[in-house]
């Protein structure tokens, strides 16, 4: 039983590509699933760079969609992780190079041979977004604890609901427990309150992500990385396990902090 999951956010730079890379790698590495990570960000591809596979691209998504090559020719097998494949986006074209119907067909074809197809969605709500969600069964929405990111995530939830997605799940990225504690950052409850969707996981801010992204080695494989641990937990939840949220040193703000939130952050949050 295979699943196509689109990873989306609305706003750019919140960590869609990082999330895709880490969840994909984790599912292949820890759950021995056959995984395809599909980069739908045509013209601004990044997933290949984050995975360190840029120099192995010969064919891409657009070539497959237009019948210029066979599906298997475009899929890049990651030599470090068995069962992990990347379908790169074209860099010299734009979002209009493929249609939602072509994406649907591509996803159907991939579903025959792979357990998980993770689609890295481009930012925005235009053609690129429509293409990316066309073939998906489920959706993950990535947000950071910022008012603008949450606003965009809310917009995306609305669009996904209109497109028939039943229960998109939320990934909160780059949370800083110390800032939440001081009342300088939105806390998890604030975000859940507005978005009213189920939480898949919370990824703490972690320097190691920057390092691993630059090196092309997903942090999920790094046992010492806190963010990596968060991704490993999410993978287990995706696989249907009950996993409590990671304890992040008393994330609940104190009473005084809450008071400060009222006068500070919440006022801006509206």
């Amino acid at each position, binding site marked *: 039983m295979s699943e196509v999951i689109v990873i989306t956010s609305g706003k750019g730079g919140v960590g869609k590509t990082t999330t895709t890379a880490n969840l994909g790698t984790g599912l292949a590495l820890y759950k021995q699933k056959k995984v395809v990570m599909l980069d739908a960000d045509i013209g601004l591809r990044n997933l290949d760079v984050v995975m360190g596979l840029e120099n192995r691209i010969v064919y891409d998504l657009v070539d497959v969609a237009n019948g210029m090559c066979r599906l298997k020719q475009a899929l890049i097998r990651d030599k470090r992780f068995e069962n992990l494949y990347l379908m790169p986006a074209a860099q010299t074209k734009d979002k209009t190079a493929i249609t939602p119907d072509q994406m649907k067909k591509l996803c159907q074809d991939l579903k025959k041979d792979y357990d998980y197809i993770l689609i890295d969605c481009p930012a925005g709500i235009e053609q690129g977004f429509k293409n990316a969600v066309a073939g998906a069964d489920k959706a993950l929405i990535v947000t950071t604890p910022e008012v603008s990111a949450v*606003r*965009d995530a*809310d*917009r995306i*939830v*609305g*669009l996904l*609901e209109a497109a028939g997605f039943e229960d998109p799940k939320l990934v909160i990225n780059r949370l800083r427990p110390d800032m939440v504690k001081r009342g300088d950052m939105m806390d998890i409850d604030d975000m859940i*309150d*507005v978005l*009213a969707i189920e939480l898949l996981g919370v990824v703490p801010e972690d320097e190691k992500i920057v390092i691993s992204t630059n090196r092309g080695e997903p942090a999920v494989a790094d046992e010492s990385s806190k963010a990596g641990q968060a991704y490993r937990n999410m993978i287990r939840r995706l696989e249907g396990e009950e996993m409590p949220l990671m304890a992040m040193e008393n994330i609940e703000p104190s009473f005084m902090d809450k008071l400060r939130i*009222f*006068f500070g952050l*919440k*006022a801006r949050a*509206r």
Partner: protein
Amino acid sequence: MTNEPVVIKGTKEGITIILEEKSNFEDVKKAIYDKLQSGRNFFAGGKVCLKIKNGFLNKGEREKLEQLLMDFGMSLQEASSPKTLIFPKPNRSRVLLLKRTVRSGQKIAYRGTIVILGDANPGSEIVATGDILVMGTLRGMAHAGADGDTTAIVAAFRLKPTQLRIAEVISRPPEEKEEVPSFPEIARLKDNVIIIEPYNVPK
């Protein structure tokens, strides 16, 4: 109503086309054509009554209109009763019930009252000619009495709107944020100013 030569209304018996005045027949024909064209599929298969307020059509003109209507899949009937039907003005007795969260970028507009079982998030717009009632948190923009009803209200379980509008009056929450009360509130117009009061169950 505007001074359009042709008005199309839906009635119990079907569709009524009212010709406001006996103006130039070709103009009337063109106006009917344009109206039907814009709602092509909507009108197909309908039965039509013709009402002419001033003046009348001669036989040839009537046949031309009949032909035009048939082109749109409609059939012309004799007016069933000479008396003019009175249409009730859409009012607050019409209620739209939404059982979901209204999210950023979504706009709900309705002629009547809107009741939302859920939240209205920042970036959403709720516009009603009557009242607006949110059984959750109102965080977006709400406009009650949108066609000028100054008695319209906005009520919410938690009233935290980005902006409130009632009839022609627009207001926003004060910049310096006072504590948001944790009880239901009602916004209404008083002396052309929007005031917010706690919701007290009427005795």
